């Protein structure tokens, strides 16, 4: 999910060959704002697992390793990190490059 138009997210997923993931767009900014994701230095992601409780929704777990918990010289990240890219780079002699990020398009 994102503030980005759902059509734009879906088009990006198609371009990347992503399958089996549903995309939705948040209506208004309440969700992003309540989760404290809109910061002066940019927008932050949120990994959240919900569970159904009857006809209501309950939080099970969400990532709470905030930016203030990042170690010196590192980007905020979870452990375990669900993004395989970084784990694979960690297996290489040079590890994850300090200032490298994947591009949106290749």
């Amino acid at each position, binding site marked *: 999910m994102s503030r980005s138009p759902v059509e734009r997210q879906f088009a990006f997923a198609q371009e990347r060959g992503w399958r089996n993931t549903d995309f939705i767009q*948040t209506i208004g900014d309440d969700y*992003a704002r309540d989760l404290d994701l809109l910061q002066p230095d940019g927008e932050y992601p949120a990994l959240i697992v919900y569970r159904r409780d009857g006809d209501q929704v309950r939080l099970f777990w969400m990532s709470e390793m905030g930016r203030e918990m990042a170690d010196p010289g590192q980007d905020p990240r979870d452990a375990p990190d669900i993004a395989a890219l970084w784990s694979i780079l960690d297996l290489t002699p040079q590890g994850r490059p300090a200032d490298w990020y994947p591009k949106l398009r290749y």
Partner: protein
Amino acid sequence: MDEQLTPAADMAAHRRPAFPGESVDYAKARQDLLAAEIEFRRHMTRLTAQRQALPPGPLIEKDYRFKDEQGFEIGLIDLFGDKDVLVSYYWMYGRNVNGPARCVPTGSGRSTAMPAISSSASPTRY
């Protein structure tokens, strides 16, 4: 749980190198690393158990609204489909995002894992 487990160092001692020609230094350092890797795996297993043992989290009281791929407006509960668990990831593919994307690798990993997660015992929707 840990009491019944074979010490990681003992397990690592069973290491069998695939390729001939290892130096003594490499063999020693790799075996130490293997023991640390086994401990890391065990730590992840403990983390998972600790997460699963969390008491019920808060109810989401606010009626957050979303627009799905068909253009319909839906609520958080609707995102579950026929599942009981929902794994969600909010990402920053915003109107002004054109540069490097820290959050994208996470989306990429989900895409490939999803079919297996759907077919696992866990009634989970991504």
